[in-house]
């Protein structure tokens, strides 16, 4: 056989033939197109981050960039504005929410701040947001004190729901608010307020309401008079007393106690002198009748 080396052999070599067949294999093409790039990238990444220093450098670099972005002046909060709160409450809030300004708005946990602000008794609800211009705005809805409660440890202001608002040094500081007393009075502030509304005609004479045994109310009037109200339906009972008073001037008399605890049997307790006078007049009545006879 003569070698034909000067002519190029048109036949593909065995390896070229096999290579072409391999390249026509769908699985292999898929592997080349997707498997190989993905695999090589994964391997490169794995090798690069196999080193702990590089990993750390990446993490710190990312953190650094993050910090830089967070600390841009656009995101900084410079002051806190408290709206809708009195000076003392605002002071309290500033005290209880300690933030060192300037601070990045990414570092502020607004929900946490809101909860902290609402921990203050005088705050009914708070809305916290970061306003444009780097202002942390806390919108406070204050509790409105409705009554003064003379508790065991001193005077306290309560709102209409019975929640503590603040302590009070002197009763005279808030003469506009009615006074409650007795243990457990704060749990029935609503009832007390409705009783006070009912007792509007007696308002100048009322000293306060006294909670007795954590179950019923006494209305304490000046001159040492009391109206003892029943446990249930105290309002109607009080209305009856007021009606009696308006009709017969009941409370202007020398009474110590109007006992309405049993609505079936209202009882009056007179003072010592009144009782004696009553007895004397009765006696005199009797003697005049007897002498007339």
């Amino acid at each position, binding site marked *: 056989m003569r070698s034909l080396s000067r002519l190029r052999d048109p*036949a*593909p070599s065995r390896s070229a*033939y096999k290579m072409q*067949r391999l390249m026509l*294999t769908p699985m292999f093409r898929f592997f080349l197109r997707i498997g190989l790039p993905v695999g090589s990238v994964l391997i490169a990444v794995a090798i690069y981050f196999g080193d702990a220093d590089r990993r750390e450098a990446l993490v710190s670099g990312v953190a650094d960039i993050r910090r830089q972005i967070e600390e841009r002046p656009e995101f900084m909060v410079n002051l806190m504005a408290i709206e809708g709160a009195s000076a003392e409450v605002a002071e309290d809030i500033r005290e209880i929410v300690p933030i060192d300004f300037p601070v990045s708005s990414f570092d502020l946990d607004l929900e946490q701040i809101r909860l902290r602000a609402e921990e203050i008794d005088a705050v009914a609800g708070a809305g916290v947001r970061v306003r444009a211009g780097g202002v942390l705005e806390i919108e406070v809805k204050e509790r409105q004190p409705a009554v003064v409660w003379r508790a065991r440890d001193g005077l306290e202001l309560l709102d209409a729901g019975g929640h503590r608002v603040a302590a009070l040094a002197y009763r005279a500081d808030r003469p506009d608010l009615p006074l409650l007393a007795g243990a457990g009075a704060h749990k029935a502030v609503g009832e007390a307020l409705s009783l006070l509304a009912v007792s509007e005609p007696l308002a100048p004479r009322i000293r306060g309401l006294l909670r007795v045994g954590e179950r019923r109310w006494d209305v304490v009037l000046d001159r040492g008079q009391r109206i003892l109200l029943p446990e249930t339906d105290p309002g109607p009972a009080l209305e009856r007393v007021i009606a009696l008073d308006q009709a017969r001037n009941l409370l202007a008399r020398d009474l110590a106690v109007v006992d309405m605890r049993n609505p079936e049997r209202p009882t009056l307790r007179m003072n010592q002198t009144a009782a004696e006078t009553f007895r004397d007049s009765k006696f005199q009545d009797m003697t005049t009748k007897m002498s007339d006879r």
Partner: protein
Amino acid sequence: MTDLYQRQRAMRAMRSAAIQRGVVAILDIGSSKVACLILRFDGPDRLTETDGIGSLAGQSSFRVIGAATTRSRGVRLGEIDAMAETERAIRTAVQAAQKMALVRVDHAIACISGGAPRSYGLAGQIEIDDAPVSEMDVARVLAACDVPDYGDAREILHAQPVNFALDHRTGLGDPRGQIGQRLACDMHMLTIDSALIQNLLYCIKRCDLELAGVASSAYASGIASLVEDEQELGSACVDMGGGATGVSIFMKKHMIYADTVRLGGDHVSMDISKGLQIPLNTAERIKTFHGGVVATGMDDRDMIELGGQTGDWDHDRRSVSRAELIGIIRPRVEELLEDVRTRLDAAGFEHLPSQQIVLTGGASQMPGLDVLAPKILGQQVRIGRPLRVQGLPQAVTGPAFSSAVGLCLFAAHPQDEWWDFEIPTDRHAGKSLRRAVKWFKDNW
């Protein structure tokens, strides 16, 4: 024989696997060219086992998606001569076809023309006791055919049942389901040199392909270039290739005879080369451009420059008239056709009802052959071209590709062969014992 049976069955299994996968390569390994077609099986008829042939003559199931042809190397007279060269030629063709098709093929169906094919007509008959003929009975009657001693170094390439007879009715295409006493069958068996098959297997294996079927190229070009009524009424297909000319005779749509004349177009080129003292390539070119077999007065004045690269001015400036060229070509073509005539006579072609002869193959494109051939082969001669199949490029629709196209049809709808039937179970001990008992019962 069992070994061959197994191998052919394995090839059939491979073929169905290839069709299941959808891509199969067709390899026509000829003496002058190697052609590779890649078929994709995805048409509407795919995988439907219909009786007979489906729509579009069974071609709607496949489509040619790749075609390549290359000069053959290492094949002489239709036989593999230099294995490494043949392997390279196959590789070239397969690679180019794969490149065109953009798919990878793993299965190939090949045809080959050489190997001195020899036809045998086999007959066998069995008794069946008035029962409908089952597939098993067909297998038994095929097994009952007495196989002649075809020699050691030969292998069966085709073994096709061509005719069944049930009692006195003959010419049955399909005896299954019919009732009779005696089932007889005629089988056409084609053997070729086993060395050729071995070489072919080796070459194809070296190309990383699996052989999913092998056919004689005479048979393949017959099914491609004979039209249906020609196949039905009896006709011969003469596939004039480069190194060998295949002859196949069809009757009732079955091949009943195949043979090879070891002459072809290459011999004509060789004669021109020798006669005019020019290189073989030039001779081939002159044959293709100026060749013919019928000379006219015009041809004396038609001078052909021979050319040459020797440096001798007189030698390189020679020219011959076309008449001289025809004078060289014609005797060889006549010899070829006379050989074909001899083979056809030997096969008893004159007894067929119709005696159509179809010339196909690359050498049949020779001008004037349609005038010369009837003088030798008889009046009913035509030049045939292969069937058109879907997707076949224009360049491979010529008669030179009739065996490749026939192989496509063969791949889509192979003829039932011996090994398509089950091995008859009466070879098992139990069945033969039962038959012995039956014989006793019947006779005592």
